[in-house]
């Protein structure tokens, strides 16, 4: 029977093409939208983790309270021993120290006088250490616009936009004017090895990336760092896992009243992040839910319309003796076949577009030009296993439901009235 119905669907395009196209379009939009929203959510979390907070972040409690002011006077000290402890206690994580610093980047002219100057938002990471994870975490090779990555001490990267604003080219010298850990003014010379673009407006305006050792020297922070970030080996953020780690680490603190002792926070606990992640999850669920609902309504309606359109055909089939139950079942099988074909086609097209956008992404830089948060300027889709199934809800279930409801009309038809109905 299914083979018979399938042939009918293929041969009678007038009754199958429109529902098929509707189902395909609906499923395609559902899958593509779902993947894009999941991708945006993952991009946001990844950006914030890699550039700002890690999956977990170890700081002093006093530093954490004022983290937005970068209080390096409250930085972690005795860094080698702290990292050793973290590596021993949580071997499934990569631990990397960073120093954030603010200051002015001053470009001298040939007489050593200021040629141009601008505020810099700096980050010191292990750039020169062998096997450093930072090149990958910050995606520096991909971010490089001009020049090269630092290979020697006192070489830095600065954001391309910032470099152009200062009229600074790779190979040229600039002086960082900042504050040491003890509050003294610090002047240190660096050579710009290259310029970078991270695709995050908040960083692309004034970023400066330097080697940790150089900044420790410049800011008088021997064996100190503002924070130590932890990343899971597979780069996946798992809330339950990091919550457990933070609880264990913080319970081990020697003196919980000492706000200069190391303290671990999860990505979600960073200021504003819980709200952002919570909102993002709600927004994702709401958008996907509403979209699914609307698509289901459209496809359900298409199912209803299809059945109503075939009012005459149903009458004839009843008139020539086909049982109502057989007719109802055949219509359900038919709708299932069309739903399945449309779901397959729509899911295929949706996944194809999502895989493309997973690589290429959509540039939203014009919308986040002045954003102070770590919002990526290119949003990529993310194909998840659920993306292969989500099309079934509108594609198969809604079409089936539409036919189930509209098909009930078959049982209301009276055989005695059929010819009268067909005459009209």
């Amino acid at each position, binding site marked *: 029977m299914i083979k018979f119905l399938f042939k009918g669907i293929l041969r009678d395009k007038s009754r199958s093409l429109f529902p098929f196209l509707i189902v395909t379009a609906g499923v395609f939009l559902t899958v593509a939208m779902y993947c894009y929203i999941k991708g945006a959510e993952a991009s946001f979390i990844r950006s914030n983790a890699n550039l700002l907070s890690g999956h977990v972040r170890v700081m002093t409690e006093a530093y954490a309270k004022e983290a937005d002011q970068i209080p390096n006077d*409250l930085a972690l000290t005795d860094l080698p021993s702290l990292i050793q402890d973290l590596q021993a206690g949580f071997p499934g994580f990569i631990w990397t120290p960073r120093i954030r610093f603010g200051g002015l980047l001053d470009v001298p002219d040939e007489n050593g006088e200021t040629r141009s100057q601008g505020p810099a938002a700096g980050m010191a990471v292990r750039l020169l250490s062998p096997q450093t994870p930072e090149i990958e975490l910050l995606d520096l090779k991909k971010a490089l616009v001009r020049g090269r990555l630092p290979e020697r001490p006192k070489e830095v990267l600065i954001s391309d936009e910032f470099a152009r604003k200062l009229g600074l080219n790779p190979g040229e010298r600039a*002086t960082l004017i900042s504050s040491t850990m003890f509050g003294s003014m610090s002047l240190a010379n660096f050579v710009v090895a290259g310029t970078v673009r991270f695709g995050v407006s908040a960083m692309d305006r004034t970023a400066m990336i330097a080697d940790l050792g150089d900044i420790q020297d410049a800011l008088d922070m021997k064996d100190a760092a503002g924070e130590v970030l932890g990343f899971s080996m597979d780069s996946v953020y798992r809330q339950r896992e990091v919550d457990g780690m933070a609880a264990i680490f913080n319970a081990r603190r020697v003196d919980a009243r000492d706000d200069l002792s190391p303290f671990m926070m999860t990505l979600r606990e960073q200021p504003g992040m819980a709200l952002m992640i919570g909102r993002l999850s709600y927004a994702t669920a709401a958008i996907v839910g509403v979209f699914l609902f609307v698509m289901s309504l459209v496809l359900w309606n298409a199912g209803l319309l299809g059945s109503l359109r075939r009012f005459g055909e149903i009458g004839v089939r009843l008139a020539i003796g086909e049982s109502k139950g057989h007719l109802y079942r055949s219509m359900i099988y038919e709708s299932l076949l069309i739903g399945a074909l449309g779901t397959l086609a729509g899911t295929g097209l949706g996944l194809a577009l999502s895989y493309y956008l997973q690589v290429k992404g959509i540039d939203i830089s014009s919308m986040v030009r002045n954003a102070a948060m770590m919002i990526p300027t290119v949003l990529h889709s993310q194909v998840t296993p659920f993306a292969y199934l989500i099309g079934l809800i509108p594609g198969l279930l809604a079409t089936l439901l539409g036919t189930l409801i509209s098909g009930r009309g078959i049982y209301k038809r009276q055989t005695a009235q059929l010819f009268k109905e067909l005459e009209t």
Partner: protein
Amino acid sequence: MKKIIILLYLALALAAPAPAQTLSADQILDRIDENAVAGNRISVTEMIIHSRRAIRTLKLKSWVQGEDKAFTEFLEPARERGTKMLKLGDQLWTYSPDADRMISVSGHLLRQSVMGSDLSYEDMLEDRKLRQAYEATVVGEETIIDRPCWVLELKAKAEEVAYYSRKIWVDRERFVLLREVRFAKSGRQLKTLEVKSVIRVQDRWVQNDVVFKDALKAGAGTEFIIRSIEFEAAIPEFLFTKASLRKEPAP
């Protein structure tokens, strides 16, 4: 830069003090200003910074000419040795020997602390006489470190001063500030100054141990102790030029 000098050593008038009731608030300010202004001075000071995490001691040598010219070189610790500052009128430059760069300190840099102390570059630049910048009122009398003092409230005459109002405790005989509290326009307390001892040098009374505290900063303040001071010393004019910042060693 004059105010840092005020913080470090306010001189006392040579003349004997007049009875309290015969001096108005403005006259008291005049006497303080007169005492603060000297010709040339060379001093070596220890700056002990009691920050939240550590106590750091810096040693600096200053050459001051009148109100407008000052040159400072840090002698200790090794990390800061050779760092110099030059003040000419309302302009301030700093020189770092490590970077071999001379930077004009202006804009928001002026709010930064000097070597992590409780003193800002803005404090260093403040050179207007108290009488010129503030309207004063005598609000009472108190005893500070066993010295009878007038208590004066000062309110800024113009907007451009760093502190909108101040409350000062002035030694009635020596015309030296023994305590001071500085406020923002909102009334928020910004800085305090407590004098621990006063000495007599070349017929002047000098605050030789002062604790300066930034109320917005953690820590126990910055203590300035004068190790040596010489008035009317000969200072070569070349010292007050930008070229001298790069010259090594300082005279």
